[in-house]
Every structure is written in structure tokens, then in C-alpha cells.
């Protein structure tokens, strides 16, 4: 399957400046809003924080994957923010976070199976040490996309 379909330059940012977790989630949510993936930043964030309350989304190796199902999502997508500075986050290895993948998924997924499959595939790649290593070295949106598209 072609992951380039779900990787959108408009919602990928490198050198993101955020001082903490909430700023990072807000910046990425605003990007999702600007690109018409969600229609309301506040209600989207509320649903993201609900999932945060259920368990840790910092999966280790400086990667965080906040996500949730939200009625404010109009189109399934994934915003990616590579941070300029490491920030604090609840993580499995107690390290901070340098790259954030914010998954936007709607509650009504009847017609979105294809896109959900792509998200699952992105998540799978985040289980690869090699991919993480490349992501942490990425300097541009193109570098980030290549990590997922390369081995198609």
C-alpha cells in the first residue's frame, strides 16, 4: 500500500518549537485544522487528552504517539512534529520526546478503512529501531516521508 497517500507535507513539520507536551499537541492540532483534517482544535485536543489519561503514549526512543477518536476529525491523517528541543512527556523509558506523531481518527470510520490501514502501517513502522533512528536524524519533511515510503 502506498503510504505517501497519508503523509501530507502540510501537516509535517521539522524544527518545531514547543516547550512542553501541551504546546506540541496544540501546534500539531492547529496544523490539522489549517489543512482541514479537523474542524475544532479544542474538542479534538479534549479527545486526545482522554486517550492520554488511559495510558502512556511516549513509546520510548524519543517518540510519542498521542492519538484518539474524535468527532472533530473530518479526514483521517497524521501530523508529525520533529522538535527542535527535547520535551518532557510520559514515556516508557523515562526519556523525553523529540518527535511527535499525532494521529487524527474519527468516530465514524465506515468509509475510512483504507486510511486506517495506512495508519496501522505507519504505527508498525514505528516499531522498527532502524526507522526510529532515521526519523531522529531527519532534517526535512522529505526525510521523514522517506522513512515510511522507502521500502515499499
Amino acid at each position, binding site marked *: 500500500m502506498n503510504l505517501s497517500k497519508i503523509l501530507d507535507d502540510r501537516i509535517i513539520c521539522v524544527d518545531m518549537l514547543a516547550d512542553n507536551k501541551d504546546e506540541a499537541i496544540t501546534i500539531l492540532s492547529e496544523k490539522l485544522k489549517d489543512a482541514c483534517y479537523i474542524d475544532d482544535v479544542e474538542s479534538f485536543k479534549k479527545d486526545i487528552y482522554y486517550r492520554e489519561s*488511559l495510558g*502512556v503514549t511516549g513509546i520510548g526512543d524519543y517518540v510519542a504517539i498521542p492519538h484518539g477518536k474524535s468527532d472533530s476529525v473530518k479526514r483521517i491523517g497524521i501530523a508529525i512534529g520533529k522538535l527542535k528541543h527535547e520535551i518532557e512527556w510520559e514515556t516508557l523509558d523515562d526519556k523525553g520526546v523529540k518527535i511527535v506523531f499525532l*494521529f487524527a481518527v474519527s468516530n465514524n*470510520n465506515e468509509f475510512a478503512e483504507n486510511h*486506517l490501514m495506512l495508519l496501522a*502501517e505507519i504505527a508498525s513502522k514505528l*516499531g*522498527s529501531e532502524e526507522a526510529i533512528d532515521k526519523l531522529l536524524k531527519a532534517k526535512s519533511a522529505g526525510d521523514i516521508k522517506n522513512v515510511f515510503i522507502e521500502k515499499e
Partner: protein
Amino acid sequence: MKIVGAAACAAGIAHTYIAKAKLVTAAENAGHEIHIETQGTIGIRDNLTQKDIEDADIVVIVADIKISGMDRFKGKKTVEVPTDLVIKSPKNFIKKLESIIK
């Protein structure tokens, strides 16, 4: 050894698939055969067949929620863990399985 199992998480979007990827890599690197079914928002994928289960030395349930079809594993040696544990230390988890089967 032959490992089969199922993975599932609260939202069914991310942890399930990350845990599976890490577990499969760790198992294969250690020379084991592995087949993990995922139960997520997109439904059940990579379904286990009855034969997969019969042939397995051990069943792993990597889940934060109840998975469906637990009755399929009746009588099999089964280990249940949350997705976090597998994401955090997949190699140690495989070692634990090895020590159980020995």
C-alpha cells in the same frame, strides 16, 4: 519455538501495531516462528487459523483490553501482557517466553 497470539489496545489505532512489529522482530531475530493477529479499529487482521494455534508452543495475548476469541486458546500455554511491556522490552519478553517453554 512457535509463537502465536493476538494484540489489541484501548483505541485500536497505534499501540497494537507497534507492539506487534516489535514482538515479531524480536522473535524472528531470536530464531522463532511467530504469527500475531491484530484486533483494532480496522477489525481483525492477520487472523490465526485453528492450525496455527494447534501447532503453537505458546500463545501470547498482548492486550490492554479484552480480546475476542479467547476460547480458541483453551488448553494452550498462554501468557498475557499489556502492550506497554512488549513495546518497552520486546527482547526480554521473548526471553521470558523461552524460559517458560524450556
